[in-house]
């Protein structure tokens, strides 16, 4: 049975060109960039070259980039780095209820360290209102962190507006752009971000590599201390092959962006309209202001993990915001943040499309989904009627 992989927002396969770019750096060009000999120089040049290429895509200077082990580390670095370096100035942080757990849990940790955090609510589509952010600002605010695009429901946030108002008030602004990296414009000047997180595993690069952009002149407290790599900000021998692969992946993603977005948007909308033909369903997140690869639909009266297992039997990989499929047994905080009632929050599915997704894949999902829903509804004693479910 052919696998229909529709979980690209979880992770992407590594592009063969990316793998090819990485391979020489495992056993041939294996040197440590800090070493004072030609093998070290070879590795150092590769890292410098990768850094410059990424910097030119982000519109920043290579010295404003720090390679990390991925999105989670970059977010921790940004939030804790700013908080600890600027605690004399203030102890207040603003973020949203829609953020990834990497942000929310880091904020919870910082609260334990004496910082206070305001979680700005979002509207029914998952959009942060810049005015709410502005109203949350206090004289003690040192950092605002709002994601560029949401991983579950695909909402694109008004980053440059928030960035502009943060800049005016002299407050640092970080954005988690892990989901946006393949699809949206990442020019840091246009976005008005001071800090930006990107990782490799969502853009057909390897897992375990990411970066933090931090505007020149911003004081950050490092998370890792040691050999002084990354200009003293992130110790640990550089992961040379992964850095090289990350740069290649980022270049590939950005070079086909417009064309690929158009293609994905068509597939996305076909999947959305096909799934909404099923009774008692609704689209989570906005219709248009959303990532071109994100589909998130709720099905009333049935549970997400059960749907996932039926889909898996048909070779289809998707994901759910259902509590039963999460390690935590809590339903998705994102669905709750957009006001989804608890009783409807267990039956959501996310299909995230990617560069190997075809129309045939979409057709396959649309062919099997109605009968899966029908089967599970026949087994279910629940018969809900909720507004906005058609």
């Amino acid at each position, binding site marked *: 049975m052919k696998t229909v992989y529709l979980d690209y927002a979880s992770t992407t396969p590594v592009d063969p060109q990316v793998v090819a770019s990485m391979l020489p750096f495992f056993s041939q060009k294996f040197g440590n960039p800090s070493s004072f000999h030609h093998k070290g120089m070879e590795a150092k040049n590769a890292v410098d070259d990768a850094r410059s290429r990424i910097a030119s895509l982000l519109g920043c200077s290579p010295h404003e980039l720090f390679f990390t082990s991925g999105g989670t580390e970059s977010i921790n670095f940004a939030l804790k780095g700013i908080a600890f370096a600027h605690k004399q100035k203030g102890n207040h942080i603003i973020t949203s209820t829609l953020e990834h757990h990497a942000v*929310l*849990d880091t*904020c*919870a*940790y910082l*609260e*334990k360290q004496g910082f206070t955090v305001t*979680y700005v609510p979002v509207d029914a589509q998952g959009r942060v209102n810049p005015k709410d952010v502005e109203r949350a600002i206090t004289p003690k605010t040192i950092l605002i962190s709002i994601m560029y695009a949401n991983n579950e429901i695909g909402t694109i946030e008004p980053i440059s507006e928030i960035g502009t108002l943060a800049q005016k008030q002299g407050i640092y602004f970080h954005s988690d752009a892990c989901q946006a990296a393949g699809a949206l414009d990442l020019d840091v000047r246009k976005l008005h971000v001071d800090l930006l997180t990107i990782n490799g595993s969502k853009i057909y690069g390897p897992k375990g590599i990411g970066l933090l952009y931090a505007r020149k002149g911003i004081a950050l407290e490092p998370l890792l201390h040691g050999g002084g790599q990354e200009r003293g900000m992130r110790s640990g021998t550089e992961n040379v092959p992964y850095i090289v692969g990350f740069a290649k992946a980022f270049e590939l993603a950005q070079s086909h962006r417009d064309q690929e977005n158009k293609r994905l948007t068509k597939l996305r909308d076909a999947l959305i309209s096909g799934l909404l033909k099923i009774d008692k369903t609704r689209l989570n997140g906005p219709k248009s202001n959303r990532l071109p690869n994100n589909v998130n639909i709720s099905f009333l*009266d*049935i*549970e*997400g*993990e*059960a749907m996932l*297992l*039926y889909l898996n*039997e048909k070779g289809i990989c998707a994901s759910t915001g*259902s*509590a*039963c*499929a*999460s*390690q*935590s*047994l*809590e*339903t998705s905080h994102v669905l709750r943040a957009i006001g989804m*009632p*608890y*009783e*409807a929050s*267990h039956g959501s599915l996310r299909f995230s499309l990617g560069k190997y997704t075809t129309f045939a894949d979409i057709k396959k999902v649309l062919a099997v989904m109605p009968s899966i829903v029908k089967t599970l509804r*026949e*087994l*279910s*004693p*629940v018969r*809900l009627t909720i507004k906005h479910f058609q």
Partner: protein
Amino acid sequence: MTVRKKDNLRKKPELHADVKAKVDSQKWFYTDEVKEHFFKPKNFMDEKTSKTYKASGIGLVGSPACGDMMKVWIKINPKTERIIDMKWSTFGCASALASTSMLSVMVTEKKGMPIEDALKIKPQDIVARLGSLPARKFHCSVLGDKALRAAINDYFRKTGQTKRIITEGARVIDKATGITDKDIEEAVLEGADTLEKLQQKLKVGIGNPACLPEVEQLLRFYKEKYSG
């Protein structure tokens, strides 16, 4: 999901909760037996049968808000006091569906299980027959035994055997207020028949909405117990 929310299941920190190291070695693992019951459920109540089915007792536990809900219909032979048929309907994940299906096989095989034995079924017994379930699924999704007990209680009530109705001991439901299931039972007896009325009386779950699914479940349980 969170109906039988035990403290040790509350792993995911709330926004303001302590951030602790999470130890989770659980794997996604469903046995062939679980898959068999999930993909080919036995004895479930279909639309058509439900219209004419004459149940001796009906039990309902859980709620869509908490992520699992089970309804059980049983037929009891009053002479032998054996369960001669069971039908079910379940909203929930694979383990919820499979465990109810397995339960229906357990109570109806071998000419039907005596009521007294059926009342003693524990989640562990169902899980043993399924081979195993991922540990974190254990407490939350295996509600079939509770639904079955509710159905047997319903049978006792319908046949006037109120003394045989089994109630569980006092247990704190809302840690914020210290409200127990007994408090909820008494409030229901005093006329609190909706969550709002219950909250006006007890303030249960107002500062701790996580316990609401269980409160709703108890509300329904006691309403059914004392109605009619």
